[in-house]
């Protein structure tokens, strides 16, 4: 869901560390280096990369197009090819039958079967276009805060991994403990109390 959608889901992160100065150059370089590449007509089945918010099908970050002062706005795109397992099975059985049809052997080894399967998947991956999934990101470098517009676990994990590779700083998801630790401005003694809290309840029966 894009940030301009009528209804959105948001996970918040704190950026743990400092981006190398000049910040805008480092961000531009990280976005460009890890921009999404097209995998249509290639055997690769999945790719993750950054893309432009305004045109997510052209990963062009030239002219600081990602800068909406004081925000940085871009998207993460996950392109994935899904091959129905029944198609793989059909082609696999056909190929096995073809290889056994000359009658020179009774069976096909496990390794050969694995090779056949890999070749089929590879050839189908070349023919099948990847389905893109786009997740928007709003980053506030001054506040070390980032909004990610997806609550999907897999997308959040891809974001954390790609962000670290691109900008050399990690993202820490803001959940109850981390939100209290990083954003509540607690004193040392309150942080100590926080780490020692134990579950409670309000049962009356």
């Amino acid at each position: 869901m894009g940030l301009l959608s009528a209804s959105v889901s948001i996970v918040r992160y704190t950026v743990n560390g400092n981006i190398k100065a000049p910040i805008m150059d480092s961000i531009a370089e990280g976005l460009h280096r890890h921009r999404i590449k097209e995998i249509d007509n290639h055997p690769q089945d999945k790719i993750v990369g950054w893309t432009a918010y305004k045109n997510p099908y052209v990963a062009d970050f030239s002219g600081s197009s990602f800068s909406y002062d004081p925000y940085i706005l871009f998207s993460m795109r996950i392109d994935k090819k899904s091959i129905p397992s029944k198609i793989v099975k059909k082609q696999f059985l056909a190929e096995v039958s073809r290889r056994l049809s000359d009658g020179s052997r009774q069976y096909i080894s496990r390794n050969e079967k694995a090779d056949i399967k890999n070749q089929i998947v590879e050839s189908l991956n070349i023919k099948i276009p990847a389905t893109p999934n786009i997740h928007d990101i709003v980053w506030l470098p001054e506040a070390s805060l980032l909004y990610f517009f997806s609550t999907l676990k897999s997308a959040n994990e891809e974001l954390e991994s790609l962000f670290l590779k691109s900008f050399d700083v990690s993202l820490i998801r803001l959940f109850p403990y981390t939100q209290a630790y990083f954003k509540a401005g607690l004193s040392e003694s309150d942080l100590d109390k926080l780490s020692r809290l134990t579950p409670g309840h309000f049962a009356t029966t």
Partner: protein
Amino acid sequence: MLDVSVTYNRFKFLGHEYLTWIWYSIETGTYRNFFDTRDNILITVGNRIVLENRLSKEIETVTIKGDSADLKEGMVALKKGALVSEISIKIEKDGQPWTLSLKGESLSIANLKTPPAGQVQDPEDVDGAVLEKIYLFEAVMKILDTLYLSFIKQRTGDDWNRKIKGKIRQWVKKN
């Protein structure tokens, strides 16, 4: 600081206590103490609450949904030791409405609807619409952060066990 990777599960309960505290604060109106009256903030419970009881051998879940849902079943669950794991709320600031669902264990926000922003008629309108939308997100995040900060200060303070826990229990008992 504790290892972040283990704190998600270890402190899940904190998110559930927080959402239960939000429900209490809304119903008793005590949330108003955390905001400047000039901000004109009004918070109401939305049309969905999920409760989880981890005191029983197996986790029991109670879901209450619907615009005219009776929340009494939720109160019964609270009496037995359940806590709120998800809640939908409506926040109004100066008459402008936001609706959203909060998940306790992750503090993630789902189904967030902001007050209406400017329509995008042509590509040149996008930048303005984006900035307006981010402004609306930030406005509601600020309110949510104030609520969480107020909760965590109370939860780590001496008054939690001395006063606040007792007040929430009284509220549960009365309803």
